[in-house]
């Protein structure tokens, strides 16, 4: 009996899942190369241009500007501003300023694209139950798949450098924006939706004048989560050649160089804290 069961396990030969995935990626690459190639070229050029621009500004200006904005969004308190000054100066002091600018650009572009793609999908999901049923497992899949796995097709589609880094970050980081946009819109109270309808709103008017403003805080929480996930991809993306602080970490890992790794790690944490506080300030409600 047990034998029979054992045979049953072996009855079906190994499914060539891996080679299917290979083929799929190859096909996608061939079919969509007319999209991927220009994206690869132009996005890369754009990001390098951006890094140059930001890099050309004297760091002291940037540090002061960040501190000023921190002071403003934290409700005229000095804590975050002081932290920004000390933190950014430390990064500069350690000779990692250029890497910081590179990482920041990566985070900014990947986050922007995530929002541009994520919010509309979230709206679609909120408006259409079938879309929700289909997208929920897809989002689960995207979030649970180890982030490293995305690097492989990313490199296949876009080569190495910034662009595959953005692509991999996007896939890994977009789900919270989609989910929380969906949730935020679905949570708008029935009475407000009824009020919008009762006064003769078109679906678009209802969405832009009532639902999105009501869901704003929730959507912003999702965007904040997305940005944090993008930040966590900074190190991983360096494995396929994305420049920045992550590359310092990988390099330290390869050379078993504890000190360099620690400094680069601390720099990422500083960037993360500042970006997190700033993106929490987006929802417009100032504390204190």
């Amino acid at each position, binding site marked *: 009996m047990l034998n029979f069961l054992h045979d049953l396990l072996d009855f079906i030969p190994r499914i060539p899942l891996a080679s299917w995935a290979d083929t799929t990626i190859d096909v996608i690459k061939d079919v969509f190369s007319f999209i991927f190639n220009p994206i690869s070229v132009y996005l890369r050029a754009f990001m390098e241009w951006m890094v140059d621009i930001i890099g050309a500004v004297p760091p002291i200006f940037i540090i002061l500007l960040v501190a000023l904005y921190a002071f403003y969004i934290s409700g005229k308190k000095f804590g975050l501003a002081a932290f920004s000054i000390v933190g950014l100066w430390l990064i500069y002091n350690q000779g990692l300023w250029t890497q910081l600018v590179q990482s920041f650009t990566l985070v900014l572009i990947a986050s922007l694209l995530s929002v541009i793609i994520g919010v509309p999908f979230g709206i679609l999901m909120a408006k259409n139950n079938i879309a929700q049923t289909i997208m929920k497992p897809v989002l689960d899949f995207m979030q649970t798949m180890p982030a490293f796995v995305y690097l492989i097709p990313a490199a296949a589609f876009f080569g190495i450098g910034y662009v595959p880094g953005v692509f991999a970050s996007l896939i890994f980081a977009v789900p919270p924006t989609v989910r929380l946009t969906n949730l935020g819109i679905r949570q708008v109270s029935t*009475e*407000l939706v*009824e*009020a*919008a*309808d*009762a*006064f*003769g*709103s*078109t679906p678009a*008017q209802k969405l832009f*004048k*009532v639902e999105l*403003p*009501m869901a*704003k805080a929730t959507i912003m929480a999702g965007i904040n989560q997305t940005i944090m996930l993008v930040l966590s991809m900074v190190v991983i993306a360096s494995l396929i050649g994305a420049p920045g602080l992550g590359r310092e970490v990988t390099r330290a890992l390869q050379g078993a160089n504890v000190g360099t790794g620690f400094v680069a790690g601390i720099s990422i944490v500083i960037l993360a804290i500042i970006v997190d506080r700033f993106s929490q300030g987006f929802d417009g409600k100032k504390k204190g």
Partner: protein
Amino acid sequence: MAKIKVENLSKVFGKRPKQAIKMLDQKRSKDDILKETGMTVGVNQASFEVQDGEIFVIMGLSGSGKSTLVRLLNRLINPSAGNVWIDGENLAQMNDQQLREVRRKKMSMVFQKFGLFPFRTILENVEYGLEVQDIEKEKRKEKALTSLELVGLKGYEHQYPDQLSGGMQQRVGLARALANDPEVLLMDEAFSALDPLIRKDMQDELLDLQSTMKKTIIFITHDLDEALRIGDRIALMKDGSIVQIGTPEEILVHPANDYVEKFVEDIDRSKVLTAQHIMKRPETVNMDKHGPRVALERMREEGLSSIFVVDSNRTLKGYITADDASLAKKNDIKHLQEILRNDIPKVDKETPMNDIFNIIHDSPIPVAVIDNSKLVGIIVRGAVIGALASDSEVNLENA
């Protein structure tokens, strides 16, 4: 022609409403349908007409389907069967575009929990219905301000809803509904979330506004007092069906069935009954024809100590007491004019009984009931108490 005509309007919540509608046509009960098909009947073949300028109250306990019914009227909920005619157009058959037009121009709604947009100022909230019609900014601001002034909220236009009290928020809701000058107002438990004193103010204010606006108002409530206070006619709902439609008096005095009777039992009659329901036919003398002798004679016949005096048009002139009359007789005074007293307690025939208590308590003589300065009846103390205690002996024929 009726402003709104509702024909056999039904709503079934469930997967196959057609099947349930068939069962409703066979007069099967709501419970039957739930047991057999698992579907819930929200509204069961409601039919009624609402006249132009009327306040039509739909009343029922929670779960009676009244909120569903009002949402069928502007199709926030789509009906499963039946028709809603507004000005001869069938709302149930309209496409989205036509429906939007009706909602923008003809019908507005006021919500139980106000339904205000918290991120918009009061002015922007009131403007909403105009904004979605793409009316230009200056014009909609002007209309919104007029509307806010109408409900007494001038000066609050730049506040946000959460800065206002509940009563004020509902005024904003009302102003928003009035801003696009609709012909029909749907009010879903509009005052139920307010505390009793504010609620009464709002009811008065609505009646005030209505006396000048003459909108057609469909008002949903679970509160019989409220229904009786503001309704021209009331429809009572139970389990999704309308069990009785009538004026407040018809419902109170002739409840259609046990359910209505039970509902009506608890009502404070003093709020509903007015002077005309408890007055008696007055004994009078005509000062153009009669003198003190006739007056004295009549008082003796009826066993009264005073009598009201009218002229030939039955306009109330005053009263005389028996003592004065006998004195006048002795002194040979011919005209009642000379012994006439003017300090008469008077009430209009529409005065609610509540307000009569104090007047009658302080008065040594019966209270005169006046209609256009004519004497139509008198109220004696016993009648007030009698009316409160009795079930059916109220003299409605006078109404």
